[in-house]
C-alpha cells in the first residue's frame, strides 16, 4: 500500500515537472513564432534603412536604428570607464568586510533593483531639466548609463575576482607594483569577462523603454547631433502598438529586429564566456 502511494507520488511529481516545462515552452514558442510569422515577411534591407512615413505605419526604421545606436553608444562610453574603475577598486582594493567597499557594493545592489521607470524620472529631473540637456539622445544615453552601471560593475568585478590569487602573489614576489600588476597582468586576463559585461550592459540598454520615454523623447527624424531628440527601437514598438492605429505590422517587424539584435548580442556574450571558461580549464 505504501509502495503504491509512493509510486503515485513519484509519477505525480514527474508529471508535474514535465507539465511545467511544457507549459512554459508553449507561450515562449508562441511568442517567437508569432513575431516571426508576422514580422518576417516585411523584413528587408529597405525596411532597415528607410525613413518611417505616416507615423511609422509605412516606411522603415533607419533613423530609429541610428538613434538607438547613438543612445547606446553614449551609455557605454560613459558607463565603461566608471564601471571599470569601480570594479577594479572593489575587487583589488577592498576586502569583503571593508566599510567603504561594502557601502558601495550595497548601494550598487540596490541600484540594480531600482525600476527603470524610476531611472526615467531621475533622468528627466537631473539630465533634462537640472543640467538643461532637454529631451535628447545625450540625456537618454546618460540615464541608461546609470541603469547599466550596476550590472556592468558586477560582471567585471567577478571576472577580476576569478583570476587566481597566485598571479597576484607571484607578481608581488617579483616586486611589481600593485598598479602595474593590475594593468599588465590582471587586466589582460580579465578582458573576456569585461567584454561579456559590456555586451550584457549593451543588451540591457537596448531593451530598455521606460527610462527613455521622457528622457530621449519620441522624435523619429534622423538625429543630427547628440542634443537632438531620438526615438529608440523599443519606444518605436510601444508607440506603434499603443498610439498608432494600424501600426501593428511595422511594430511586429521592429520587434523582430530588436529581438534579433538582442539575441545576437547574447549569443556573442555566451560564446565569449564559453570560450573563456574552456581556455581557463586548459591544463597549465
Amino acid at each position, binding site marked *: 500500500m*505504501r*509502495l*503504491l502511494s509512493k*509510486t503515485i507520488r513519484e509519477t505525480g511529481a514527474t508529471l508535474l515537472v514535465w507539465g511545467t516545462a511544457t507549459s512554459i515552452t508553449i507561450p515562449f514558442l508562441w511568442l517567437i513564432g508569432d513575431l516571426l510569422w508576422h514580422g518576417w515577411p516585411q523584413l528587408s534591407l529597405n525596411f532597415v534603412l528607410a525613413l518611417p512615413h505616416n507615423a511609422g505605419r509605412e516606411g522603415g526604421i533607419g533613423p530609429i536604428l541610428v538613434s538607438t545606436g547613438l543612445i547606446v553608444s553614449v551609455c557605454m562610453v560613459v558607463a565603461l570607464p566608471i564601471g571599470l574603475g569601480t570594479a577594479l577598486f572593489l575587487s583589488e582594493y577592498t576586502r569583503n568586510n571593508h566599510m567603504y567597499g561594502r557601502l558601495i557594493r550595497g548601494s550598487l545592489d540596490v541600484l540594480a533593483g531600482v525600476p527603470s521607470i524610476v531611472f526615467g524620472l531621475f533622468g528627466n529631473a537631473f539630465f533634462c531639466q537640472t543640467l538643461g540637456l532637454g529631451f535628447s539622445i545625450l540625456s537618454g544615453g546618460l540615464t541608461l548609463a546609470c541603469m547599466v552601471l550596476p550590472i556592468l560593475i558586477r560582471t567585471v568585478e567577478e571576472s577580476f575576482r576569478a583570476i587566481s590569487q597566485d598571479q597576484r602573489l607571484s607578481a608581488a614576489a617579483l616586486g611589481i607594483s600593485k598598479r602595474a600588476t593590475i594593468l599588465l597582468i590582471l587586466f589582460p586576463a580579465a578582458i573576456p569577462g569585461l567584454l561579456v559585461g559590456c555586451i550584457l550592459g549593451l543588451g540591457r540598454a537596448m531593451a530598455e523603454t521606460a527610462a527613455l520615454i521622457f528622457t530621449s523623447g519620441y522624435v523619429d527624424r534622423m538625429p543630427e547631433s547628440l542634443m537632438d531628440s531620438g526615438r529608440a527601437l523599443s519606444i518605436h514598438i510601444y508607440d506603434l502598438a499603443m498610439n498608432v492605429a494600424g501600426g501593428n505590422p511595422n511594430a511586429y517587424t521592429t520587434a523582430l529586429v530588436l529581438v534579433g539584435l538582442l539575441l545576437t548580442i547574447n549569443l556573442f556574450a555566451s560564446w565569449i564566456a564559453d570560450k573563456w571558461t574552456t581556455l581557463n580549464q586548459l591544463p597549465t
Partner: protein
Amino acid sequence: MDYAESTPDIRQAQDHSPAIQSWPPYQSTQLCCEPTAHIRAKNLSIAYHKHSVLQNVDLEINKGCITALVGPSGCGKTSFLMSINRLTDLIPTCRVSGQLHMNEVDILAPTTNLLLLRRQIGMIFQKPTVFPFTIKKNLEIPLREHGIHPKTSLASTIETALQQVGLWDEVKDRLNHPAQALSGGQQQRLCLARALVLAPQILLLDEPCSALDPISSGVVEDLIVSLRGQYSVVIVTHNLAQARRISDHVALFWSVDGVGQLIETGSAQHMFESPQHELTAAYISGARG
C-alpha cells in the same frame, strides 16, 4: 505494523510477496565469514564515456565478512563499489556491463527496484555526508521515506542506531542541533548510523577513515570491526595497515594500461603472507603503488 510489509521483493516494485530480508536487523548466529557468496560479480566492466575504467572483474563477497578492496588510486575500486548499489546510475555517461548479483537478485537488471536495493545496501563515503539538518532529522528522513516509522518507537529506533555507533552518549542532549556542528569522526559515525537504521545486509565503505584524524579514525575502525558477522562489509582503503587489521578478505585492484583490473583476491592471511601475484607482493611490501 508488520515490518515485513515494508520490505517487499526487491525484484518487482508492485509485488507484495514475502520479504527477502525482514526487519529488524539480520543477526547472524553463525560464524562470520560463511563461505557463501553474498555478492557475485562476473565479468563486470565499467566504462565512463566509452572509456573503460574497470574490466572483467570476477569477485565474490562473502556473507558477514569484511572484504577490503586495495590498490592505487584510479584503478576502479570506487566505481566497483558504486556499481553494487547502482549509484553509477547517477553518472550520465557511465555504463556497467557483465553480471552482478546480490544473493539471487540481479543488481544490474533494469527492473530491479533501486530504492529497495539501496535500502539493503548501505553506503558510507570518504567525507562525512551528513545533511545540513539536525542530527535527529538526518536519521528520520531515511526512516520515514522507507516507511519505517512506527510512531511510538521512532525515538527508540534512533537511540538504538546511535548507540550502535557509540554516538548516543555524546549527542543524546543535542539531537536537535545541526549535524554539521559535530566533529568529523562523529559525523562519519552519524552517517554510519543513518545507514544502519535501515537495517541493510551489506555495507559499502569508501575510504571511510581517510578524511578523519587518527583518533576518530580508530573509533570508526573499531566500529567497522564490530559489524563483522552482522553485515557483509566491503571497504575501500588506501591504508594497508588498516586492511591487514580489519579485513577477512582482500582484493587487489590495479590499473593496467589505464584500465582497472582485479589482480588477486583471497583471504587476508593469504594476501599478506603468501601472495601469488608479483604485483600483490610488491604492493604489500610497499615497493609499488
